[in-house]
């Protein structure tokens, strides 16, 4: 299962929650599948989705789902230490791990080699880390959101992207409608 198909399966779960979505193909795919004011699309800044999600989950009591990627987490691995040491019960970090840099042509990442992000997250102090195949992810995400416990999910997907248009929305509009949703 590729990320696009996973996101389609996750749509009914994600649409009820604040979602911070990683740069590039993930945001473009989510935007095409289910554009919502409750989605914060990153248009730049590779690697900061989980950091934004942690900051947001500290500021709000609402549930926050981060959709991150293996390549992006590798660029900002320290974020897992910050998350592990500041656990927020309303935060779920979903790392779509397809072993590749999807937005740039599916070049392999090290998670397709010897590196385990689940191992990194656990070593960083994250108490609840679940690695699962893509098709089990909807149930695991649903349970994580119900559990009131900070959870890191590493969802193993196949490499590949769906061709979706670049997001043309103004960044300030994305932020303002998202903030209105947070405050609602």
């Amino acid at each position, binding site marked *: 299962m590729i990320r696009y198909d996973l996101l389609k399966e996750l749509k009914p779960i994600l649409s009820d929650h604040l979602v911070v979505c990683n740069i590039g193909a993930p945001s473009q795919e989510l935007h095409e599948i289910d554009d919502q004011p409750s989605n914060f699309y990153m248009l730049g800044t590779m690697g*900061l989705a*989980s*950091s934004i999600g942690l*900051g947001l989950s*500290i*500021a709000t009591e609402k549930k926050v789902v981060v959709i991150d990627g293996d390549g992006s987490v590798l660029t900002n691995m320290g974020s897992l*230490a*910050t998350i592990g040491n500041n656990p927020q019960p309303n935060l779920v970090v979903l790392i779509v791990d397809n072993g590749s840099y999807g937005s740039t042509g599916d070049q392999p990442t090290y998670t397709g080699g010897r590196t385990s992000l689940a191992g990194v997250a656990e070593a960083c102090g994250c108490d609840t880390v679940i690695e699962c195949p893509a098709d089990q992810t909807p149930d695991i995400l649903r349970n994580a959101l119900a559990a009131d416990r900070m959870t890191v999910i590493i969802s193993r997907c196949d490499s590949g992207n769906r061709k979706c248009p670049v997001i043309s929305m103004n960044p300030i509009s994305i932020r303002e409608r998202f903030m209105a949703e947070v405050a609602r």
Partner: protein
Amino acid sequence: MAREIDRQIIRDLRENGVNFVTTVPCKQLAGLIEVLGDTDTIRHVPCTREDEGMGLCAGAYMGGMRPLIMMQNTALGVTLNALATLIQYYQIPLPMLISYRGEVGEPVACQVEMALHTKALLAQLHIPTYHFHNVAQADELPGILDHCQMCRKPVAVLTDASFWGSAT
């Protein structure tokens, strides 16, 4: 050991409504970070790198908090993309309280290398920049914090060795 200047700055942050601070430490910021630890109204989340800290601040802002980052000028390079494509692009107000290493009084020669680029990089990014060189200039901080919220931009406050040396 925290000094009066540290307590004054944290008081100014509190009175401005700052309630989320992320830090990467510097010797010159040690007193501030100590006072932060005793300040209940400010959530302090140390970050591992300054661009990560800007991500935390962006999230906290969107959740309704008022963030600030404390960092050293030597880290400016790693934050350029986060500043341009997150903080500026989405118009997020972000005061940056920066320890300006490498100025007169600096004991470590290598620190001078990034000091030479600090103001040029901030100018290139069109970031409003204020340079505190003596302790009296700290009185401008409340106005700078208001200005930052008004214009919804990152704003840099550079605090050099003379500033910290002149403080009590």
